[in-house]
């Protein structure tokens, strides 16, 4: 402001000096004002025996307690969270993932001697029942006799 008002009257060197002085004055005024405003906050902190109301440090805790509070409790909390997260999948048992090793026992559902019962139905005829002899009687007329090696199917990979 000063330099702009006297820009035409003062030479360059003097104008710069005036500007620097004004800046120094402003900065020190701000610092001083801040110190004055905040000074009550520092008034009570000088000396160990001066404390605020209700500021009770209490008895100091032992090393064991420190380890317990800052070591054991957080680790226990981590362990608990991990358990809660992974317990459902552990209960669910093994889960297949493609490309993963498969070491589970082989299973045959509907194996010979332990067929899955169909629970009765329209097709539960003697000819189709378990352990029944090859088709006989009238049923033979409608279905060709089964010859071994006449089966079909398909192969696939994933």
């Amino acid at each position, binding site marked *: 402001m000063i330099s702009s008002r006297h820009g035409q009257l003062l030479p360059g060197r003097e104008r710069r000096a005036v500007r620097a002085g004004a800046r120094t004055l402003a900065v020190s005024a701000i610092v001083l004002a801040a110190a004055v405003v905040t000074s009550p906050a520092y008034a009570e902190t000088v000396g160990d025996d001066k404390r605020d109301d209700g500021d009770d440090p209490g008895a100091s805790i032992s090393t064991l307690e420190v380890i317990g509070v800052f070591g054991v409790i957080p680790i226990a909390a981590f362990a608990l969270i991990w358990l809660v997260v*992974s317990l459902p*999948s*552990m209960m*669910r*048992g*093994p*889960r*297949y*993932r*493609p*490309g*993963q*090793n*498969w*070491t*589970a*026992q*082989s*299973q*045959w*559902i*509907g*194996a*010979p001697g332990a*067929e*899955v*019962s*169909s*629970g*009765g*139905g*329209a*097709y*539960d*005829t003697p000819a*189709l029942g*378990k*352990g*029944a*002899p*090859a*088709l006989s009687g*009238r*049923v033979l*007329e*409608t*279905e*060709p006799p*089964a*010859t*071994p090696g*006449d*089966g*079909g*199917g*398909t*192969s*696939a*990979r*994933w």
Partner: protein
Amino acid sequence: MGPVLAGEAFSERQRGEIIRAIQLGQRASGVQFSVYVGAAEGPPRPYAMRRHAELGASAPDSVLVFVDPAARNLEIVSGARARRWVNDRAAGLAAATMTSAFAAGNLAGGIASGINVLAEHARHPQSLHTG
């Protein structure tokens, strides 16, 4: 959890899902379904056919779904009479259904829905000529 799958291949619930699919398929189509999940010894196709033959008297009416998760191999073996209802095209369709589920990691669900597809194709009018 880990990479090692020891013990049972399926949980009780998954096993129940497969058994239910077998029962429903059997009831709906008259074809007996059998599911083998495990490793093949030697070439998979002959091994699966040997397993199918082990079904004995019910083998001609049976369809064996042979799943080898370690080798990522699937074999569907249909007996001579079962093939009338489960033709090879239906088996191929069921195989596609199963392998797409297997590739997503859904072994039990893939087997169950594959059996559903097979049973759906094997559904046929009953002609017993008993009258």
